């Protein structure tokens, strides 16, 4: 059931006159009962709603995905890395859903992973071969924690080796048939 009979028209009123139809309105109001103190400085602006004088609007010349919980673009926003490619398509899908929905956040995480692959492809397309050793800061791991470095390298080598071995064996079996 949706009933709007008691919904306020315009800013919420805080005077007793506006609530004279409610017996005892404000009788127990206690300004010291404010758990937001001192983090929030009470100015009673809550009752005015979204009516502040806005800063001037930054011009928009790239795609900005905006939460559907907002009614406008904020006056200022970041313009780095606009959505593009497959990751961008996933992000656009995600932004159809509110911040309260898993369908907003989980696709964004997926888009991030897709974006990593897109980043490598873009690097290669520009003639840059990513240096995984340097990008992961492995020089420091070798310097300060050789044991961990060797263990992880050995584990990775074992996994890669096992995967390659299985692939070779399967390929040989296929050829034998």
């Amino acid at each position, binding site marked *: 059931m949706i009933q709007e009979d008691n919904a306020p028209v315009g800013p919420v009123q805080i005077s007793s006159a506006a609530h004279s139809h409610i017996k005892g309105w404000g009788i127990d109001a206690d300004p010291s009962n404010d758990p937001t103190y001192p983090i929030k400085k009470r100015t009673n602006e809550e009752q005015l709603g979204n009516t502040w004088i806005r800063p001037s609007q930054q011009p928009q010349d790239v795609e900005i995905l905006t939460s559907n919980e907002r009614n406008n673009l904020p006056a200022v926003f970041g*313009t780095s890395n606009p959505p593009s490619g497959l990751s961008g398509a996933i992000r656009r899908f995600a932004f159809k859903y509110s911040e309260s929905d898993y369908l907003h956040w*989980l696709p964004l995480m997926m888009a991030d992973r897709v974006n*990593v692959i897109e*980043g490598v492809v873009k690097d290669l397309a520009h003639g840059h071969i*990513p240096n995984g050793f340097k990008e*992961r800061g492995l020089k420091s791991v070798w310097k300060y924690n050789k044991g961990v470095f060797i263990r992880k390298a050995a584990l990775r080598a074992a996994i890669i080796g096992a995967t390659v071995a299985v692939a070779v064996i399967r390929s040989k079996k296929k050829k034998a048939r």
Partner: protein
Amino acid sequence: MNYRGPYKVRADKNAPYPEILHPEDAIVRVVRSCICGSDLHLYHGLVPDTRVGTTFGHEFIGVVEDIGSEVTEVKVGDRVMVPFNISCGKCAFCRQELYGNCHESNPQATAVGGIFGYSHTAGGFQGGQAEYVRVPYANVGPTVIPEWMDPDDAVLLTDVVPTGYQAAEMGGIQPGDTVVVFGAGPIGIMAAKSAWLFGAGRVIVIDQLDYRLEFVKNYANAEVYNFRELEDPVVFLKQTTDSLGADVCIDAVGCEAEGNKMNYILGTKLVMQGGATTALHWAINSVKKGGIVSIVGVYGPIDALVPIGNVVNKGITIRANQAAPKRLLPRLIEHVKNGIINPKELITHRIPLEEVAEGYRIFSGKLDNCIKPVLIPPSAGM
């Protein structure tokens, strides 16, 4: 700094010079930029909408190089510290000094205001782990660094000191209170230090790294305990507080808390929840009935395992927010001047920006007894 994917970053020498995009923008030449514990959540791939090509960094100071047509509060040549939040100063939230909750700086999420270099979930702004950075709302955020202040102290006033201080402030600490801080990273260390300023009677810090516990024991006069040596930290804390619990518990750990394998795997590996909530779980269960839990640890936006039933049954008050450095700076600058807080003592590593990948690896892996790394751009000269 250029993020390439989880655990992969590089120094990009071809990054474009930032532009003035709004009349209240400034361009700042960075002279110091820290790596924050919450940057590690980005680095580890845990924050949604972290796009390849993003420059991280929300703790930085520098020199104003260029200003927009409506900037009046700072001028070219000013040395400034820039709070990590981007605040317009005009919306209802900023006017109520909730500078971390600005409504005019983040299109992608209403849950948080704009933050420098903290993914598109926090507005898509490039951060300060760079030589130059665009600083929106330069009339509001940037604060001129006093002549007497060491730049290493100033850079820690952009986030670490205010966040640790606000963690204690949100605890509503009364004289004589027992305060337990979960996490001996820079924020936890500063929260422990700040707890005494509010009159705490006893300050306990819990962590798993002995070198950090040793540091906070000396820096903040705290009692320290390694939870790896405790069978059950909650039982231990109850026993040490007359079986009643602490008056205030502070969660200065956030979404990558260790201490419970299932929670850790669900929160950080499978991402089935907004991070591992072990520290918060312990905070809620260790606090006294009627006590206060203060949360400054960063968590993801989706649901998380929390013993909410205990919050209700114990009558716990939870207070949480992104800190508001702008609100706190006047007081904190005074504390630094009077020698009450010495922020730069937390810095253990000074790393050239060109070696940012090594800096992240050292901080992420807790290598070389790292507590707080600072990146220094080649154009620092300060």
